């Protein structure tokens, strides 16, 4: 069965510093991985996805994620954090269906706090 793990409940980083939010995955077959962000009172917003190809995926708001097959990881990164990046971040893996609906299996979420 597909699953993802987010080992950190919270990550604290100073504004301007690089940030990393960790995610590891366990899948049977090829991994299709996603990052979503949730701001207060908002729905989950798509940031980026890895389907195939380059291991470094670039997404919205300056975020990127590095897919590492040997470490089964898909960590979210940003070179320089902003206070406005403070939010709840979810890693997710697809169930892998290509020809119909395809559910997402989410991690427990990591709260990112960027302080000035």
């Amino acid at each position, binding site marked *: 069965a597909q699953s993802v793990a987010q080992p950190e409940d919270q990550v604290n980083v100073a504004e301007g510093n690089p940030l990393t939010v960790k995610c590891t995955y366990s899948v049977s077959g090829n991994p*299709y991985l*996603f990052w*979503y962000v949730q701001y207060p*009172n*908002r*729905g*989950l*917003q*798509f940031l980026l*996805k890895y*389907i195939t190809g380059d291991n470094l995926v670039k997404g919205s708001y300056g975020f990127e994620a590095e897919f590492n097959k040997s470490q089964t990881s898909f960590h979210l990164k940003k070179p320089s954090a902003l206070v406005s990046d403070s939010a709840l971040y*979810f890693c*997710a893996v*697809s*169930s*892998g*269906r*290509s*020809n*119909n*609906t*395809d*559910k*997402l*299996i*989410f*991690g*427990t*979420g990591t709260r990112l706090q960027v302080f000035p």
Partner: protein
Amino acid sequence: EPEVTQTPSHQVTQMGQEVILRCVPISNHLYFYWYRQILGQKVEFLVSFYNNEISEKSEIFDDQFSVERPDGSNFTLKIRSTKLEDSAMYFCASSELAGFYNEQFFGPGTRLTVL
């Protein structure tokens, strides 16, 4: 930018009552989903819907739950007889195309409180 909308934002109900949660997916999207998040827990898949029928459902989605697309714009989740453990944030999502290639767009959620 088009958005998924959900109403109401907060629903309070008594145990045993029926509730209907409403969603308006993005207009050209064809694939629809409901997820829920119990406070402090992970977001869990409930059901997916395409071409006017359920495509997939989780073990959570028992006979007390149903989904419907009553017209060309709304997508509803009905809980026939609510239980205390149904208290959660319910998210609707939609995607334009099939499968894992296409990201899902989520609504802001409906917080359901069962007393």
